[in-house]
């Protein structure tokens, strides 16, 4: 099956690049920070370690997936590997979705590797939910970065756009709360800002409700709430994949 072969190639490339070493380094740094902070904490040492390590590993997963997807995609484009692949009897959708599946699998492996150490501080069920959520989040980041890399076709702008998109999605709930504050002056600018922010929020994923550190500290979330959050992420991955395919089909390569 061609898509599965492409997925395997992406995973092979990730394994042969420096990604495993970077992941190991990120894990070592996170464990070091957590150990240091637990020494200076007066109370809640375990909670401090778990929360700091989880936040650090979540950020590292997003950064590593973004860098890997952008660099791999743009290297293939610059080396004319993309043209070579398209000369094969493969549909563009097979090519695009195969690569996306490979990057998502890469993110899932990272999520698994980063979840295991958390078992030392949190209940296995909570860690499992956190890890699955991180895998979904990594898949979304991979889809967004693949979309930006294919459309922008330059490394730094693609990474900047992906990271900017992620940070905006993470902070959108807070931005909406600030825009709807009761003390805002009734000026036309603030009147315009509120619906504008709400409009932007409609087009962004709700990343503030997934991969929560609170799950590790205070127990797993309600099943329905958890499933709804992951379903929303899956829907957004589908949207990004469709948008990326739309652009890819229109490319004159």
């Amino acid at each position, binding site marked *: 099956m061609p898509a599965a072969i492409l997925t395997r190639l992406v995973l092979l490339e990730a394994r042969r690049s420096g990604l495993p070493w970077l992941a190991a380094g990120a894990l070592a740094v996170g464990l070091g920070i957590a150990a240091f902070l637990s020494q200076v904490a007066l109370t809640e040492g375990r909670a401090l370690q778990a929360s700091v390590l989880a936040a650090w590993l979540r950020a590292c997963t997003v950064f590593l997936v973004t860098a890997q997807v952008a660099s791999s995609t743009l290297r293939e484009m610059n080396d004319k590997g993309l043209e070579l692949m398209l000369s094969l009897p493969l549909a563009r*959708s097979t090519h695009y979705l195969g690569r996306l599946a490979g990057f998502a699998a890469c993110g899932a492996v990272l999520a698994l590797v980063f979840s295991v150490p958390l078992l030392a501080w949190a209940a296995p069920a909570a860690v499992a939910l956190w890890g699955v959520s991180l895998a979904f989040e990594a898949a979304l980041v991979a889809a967004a970065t693949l979309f930006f890399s294919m459309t922008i076709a330059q490394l730094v702008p693609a990474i900047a756009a992906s990271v900017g998109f992620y940070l905006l999605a993470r902070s959108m709930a807070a931005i909406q709360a600030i825009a709807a*504050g009761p003390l805002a002056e009734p000026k036309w600018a603030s009147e315009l800002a509120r619906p504008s922010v709400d409009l932007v*929020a*409609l087009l962004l994923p709700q990343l503030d409700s997934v991969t929560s550190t609170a799950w590790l500290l205070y127990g797993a979330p309600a099943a329905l709430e958890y499933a709804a959050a992951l379903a929303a992420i899956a*829907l957004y991955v589908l949207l990004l994949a*469709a*948008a990326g395919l*739309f652009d890819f*089909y229109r490319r004159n390569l």
Partner: protein
Amino acid sequence: MSRDERPLAAVPGAVWVVLALSLAGQIAWQAMRAPDAAAAAELPPPPRPEALHLASFGEPEATARVAMLYVQAFDLRVDYRRLVGWLESILELDPRSQYPLFSAARIYAEAPDPARSRTALEFVYREFFRDPERRWPWLAHAALVAKHCRSGRGKWRSSSSRT
């Protein structure tokens, strides 16, 4: 359409359908999601100034102002002891900022509840002595609020339009 682009007809129908459905689904999903009602929620306990310093990543001026935006997203029914705690931490983060004192003297001191108003005015009074050169306008305004806005029976003559 540039030379690098193919016509829209080159996009398969299935991609059009999936794109339209997923976009509609995303918008519907987010539209159904209840917005966070910060105004009606309870203001969380104030962070210590050291914690805010740590969270600022070396940008205390920007963090202080963003924290003020966060605090002002809550309405005037908040617990004023917590509110003043937030204002103290933010002022500690950026002592030259006028924002916390402005908010205390011009907004929170004009609350209709005399006890809350007094809490805000006392905050302005306490903070004045730490930097009189810079903070005297807010103490002057607080004095005017305390003297002219209250009647002898502890009620406000006029309530602010903001409350």
